[in-house]
């Protein structure tokens, strides 16, 4: 075929790991994957973490992270680049193949202006004069909808927002007019309302420039909006490949079917009953170094054994509210009532029982655990601290808790490094549960997890709630999660509650503008959603 841009044949990728105290092991990250991409088309690579999608995605640039070994054939523009010398690879990178990273904020050099970085490869490969390259960059800034395109390039990375940086990185990739762009989760780190704009800008840029693209993501709904074809990967192997329509509408493999139908949780919301367990009464709070309040007059309440979801984008103040409730950030106005009693504002003023009744689970399970403690120590700490359990009694209780979280006794002597992401989060849940709390604050507990794993965690949380009658204050930016588990919902925006009520009321029209926009921005698992959403928003 004359118009084949990328042809990967039987690609196998291996790495050597060095587990502590053991002999080095060879592991296979990608096992015999083949794919082809025609010029000007977009192929979506989808899979969970560890599926090898980024590793495959970077292979057309001849690049492997951390000393991995590539074998097989990777043909770009009719040449097998795995046979190329380092010099030939450098000629390829930044000229024929460009890359857009997940976190543009980290992928830009903080010490150079955006323009300098956007046109760097164009100048380096001698593709245009500085003046022509700058003109093209401004043109691209305009095309990608960046504000003030004439002067955008003179700014430094820290001076623009995350969504703008992601678009600037797309401009950087497009600037040398490459044949292929690798998009590595370009919208994953963004808020949904920002994601939709960036997604539209990327799609528009791909269509107008006719560049071919590999689009790597774990979010099937997102990739369905931009890709012509989709390749589903799992454990480094191909599961299924087909057109976007075929994968979304009639997936053949059970794994793909599970991905498409994820969020199968059914949870009937309960109406508020009895006295509220936690009442937030007109609370305002500020950080010492910021001007003005981060939280402004927040009021809400939560009943025992129920779930209150707090939804909002980054900067909305939802995590700050959690810090205020836990006593880490004393509010400057208002108060919290817990079980009818006012909560002391500062952590130091609270007694042991109050501390015990209010536990927390974090987004990053792996940094919330001491890497040098075993699971027994991690879960056992609150047992000793609150209940004075020691030795055999403590170990017995830890095993009970491990069974509660569906892991079992076999995990008791493991270290956090020997657990998967989902298992780590389960251990954190067990640690919170060990204190026998009345309320657990869950701060984005499923955000760092793959969809299927996150689903398992949510199901576990619901089961534990039914059994232990524990209440959850569930902080998240993910509306799908909210729909799955909440009894009542508070939508936060810029430090204020814009909408609050039972799940039914909050998610039913008429909507306020912000909630409307938020709901409309959540990607849906159907083709053409992006266009529909943009059209609705324009009206």
């Amino acid at each position, binding site marked *: 075929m004359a118009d084949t841009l990328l042809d990967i044949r039987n690609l196998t990728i291996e790495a050597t790991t060095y587990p502590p105290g053991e002999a080095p092991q060879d592991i296979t990250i990608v096992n015999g994957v083949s794919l082809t991409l025609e010029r000007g088309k977009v192929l979506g690579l989808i899979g969970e973490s560890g599926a090898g999608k980024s590793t495959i995605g*970077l292979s057309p*640039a001849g*690049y492997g*992270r951390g000393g991995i070994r590539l074998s097989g054939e990777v043909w770009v523009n009719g040449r097998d680049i795995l046979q190329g010398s380092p010099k030939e*690879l*450098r*000629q*390829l*990178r*930044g*000229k024929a193949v*460009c*890359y857009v*990273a997940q*976190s543009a904020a*980290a*992928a*830009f*050099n*903080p*010490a*150079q202006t955006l323009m300098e970085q956007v046109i*760097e*490869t164009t100048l*380096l*490969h001698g593709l245009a004069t500085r003046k022509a390259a700058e003109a093209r960059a401004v043109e691209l800034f305009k095309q990608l909808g960046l504000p003030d395109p004439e002067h955008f390039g003179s*700014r*430094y990375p*820290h*001076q623009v927002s995350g969504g703008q940086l992601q678009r600037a990185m797309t401009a950087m990739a497009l600037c040398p007019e490459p044949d292929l762009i690798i998009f590595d989760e370009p919208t994953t780190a963004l808020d949904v309302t920002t994601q939709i704009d960036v997604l539209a800008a990327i799609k528009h840029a791909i269509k107008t420039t006719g560049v071919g693209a590999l689009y790597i993501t774990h979010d099937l709904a997102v990739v369905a909006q931009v890709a012509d074809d989709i390749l589903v990967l799992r454990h480094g192997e191909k599961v299924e490949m087909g057109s976007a329509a075929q994968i979304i509408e009639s997936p053949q493999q059970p794994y793909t079917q599970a991905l498409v139908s994820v969020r199968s949780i059914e949870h009937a919301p309960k109406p508020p009953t009895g006295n509220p367990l936690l009442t937030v009464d007109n609370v305002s709070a500020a950080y010492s170094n910021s001007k003005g309040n981060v939280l402004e007059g927040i009021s809400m309440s939560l009943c025992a054994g129920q779930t209150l979801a707090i939804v909002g984008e980054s900067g909305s103040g939802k995590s700050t509210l959690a810090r205020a409730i836990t006593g880490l950030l004393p509010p400057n106005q208002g108060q919290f009532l817990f079980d009818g009693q006012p909560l002391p504002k500062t952590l130091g003023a609270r007694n042991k029982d109050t501390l015990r009744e209010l536990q927390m689970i974090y987004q990053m399970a792996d940094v919330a655990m001491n890497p040098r403690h075993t699971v027994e120590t991690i879960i056992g700490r609150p047992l000793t601290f609150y209940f004075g359990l020691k030795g055999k009694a403590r170990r017995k209780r830890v095993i009970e808790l491990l069974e509660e979280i569906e892991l079992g006794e076999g995990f008791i002597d493991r270290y956090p490094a020997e657990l998967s992401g989902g298992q780590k989060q389960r251990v954190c849940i067990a640690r919170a549960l060990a204190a026998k709390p009345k309320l657990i604050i869950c701060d984005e507990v499923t955000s760092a997890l793959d969809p299927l794993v996150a689903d398992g965690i949510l199901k576990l949380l619901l089961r534990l709630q039914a059994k232990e009658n524990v209440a959850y204050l569930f902080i998240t930016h993910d509306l799908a999660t909210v729909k799955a588990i909440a009894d009542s919902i508070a939508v936060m925006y810029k430090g204020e509650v814009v909408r609050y009520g039972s799940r039914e009321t909050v998610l039913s029209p008429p909507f306020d503008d912000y909630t409307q926009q938020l709901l409309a921005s959540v990607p849906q698992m159907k083709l053409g959603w992006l266009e529909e959403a943009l059209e609705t928003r324009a009206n």
Partner: protein
Amino acid sequence: MNTFVLKLIAQRIALGLLLLLAVSVLIFVGTQLLPGDVAQSILGQSATPEAVANLRRELGLDQPAWLRYFDWLGGILQGDLGTALSNRQDIGSSLWGRVGNTLFLAFWTAIVAVPLAILLGLVAVRYQNRWPDRAISGTTLTAISLPEFFIGYLLIYLFAVKFNWFPSVSTVHSGMSLGERLHAIALPAATLTLVILAHMLRMTRAAILNVMQSPYIETAELKGLGTFRIIARHAFPNAIAPVVNVVMLNLAFLIVGVVVVEVIFVYPGMGQYLIDHVSKRDVPVVQAVGLIFAAVYIGLNMLADIIAIVTNPRLRHPK
């Protein structure tokens, strides 16, 4: 440059001056605490009490300490460092020439050592864990491990005695041309370079390697840039702050820590002068030299802070 950065810099300078004032108090109090009486030590054990009392009055030692401190400080602010006790000479007139000599040696050593250290650091990163890196690290580590008097004598043996290229005694005087002076200080400058090179080089290497882990370095690699361009253009600008700090500490060492080298090469610098007067218990000289050393340390570290502020894009270009 914006007002925020200017304010930060002004704060640093004000802090530096305040610190210097505090150090001047410390130096003065410290020398007061030394046992023994200056008048007594000048006149010797056999002096009569009347003679000692007379001399004390003459030297102003009968005044209260705080008054003498302000006298001393006021004099220094007007450029008067006081009078040496041992030879009754004005300290300023004999010291400034020596300070000039020390600065001359430090300046030319720095001109060679700093760029060399940074360049070798960049090369060590470029060939990380390969033979150029190991050779550079090995050599400089050896140099820093040897005492400076040993290196000094080794260089004298090789280049002065064996090959007779440079003089073993680094005498400089006002009648010499720049070329003659440079020739005279070649060996002490080389000794000092070997002493300070490793520290700066290893810090440069470590700071850049730290930055090399950043995602934007991967971006640069995927742009098809060559390794040296990545290091020089993308890594080094982000590693300036830690490197500058170490460079400044070493520059300070060149001025306050050269005593041994000055003695070996009989170089008429400040260190030699200090040693001579410490042995004579000449308190005003010790105070004056101590204050100059403190000023150098504080000044250079202040400069490092200011460079770190000015090279930080987040401070230079706020949102």
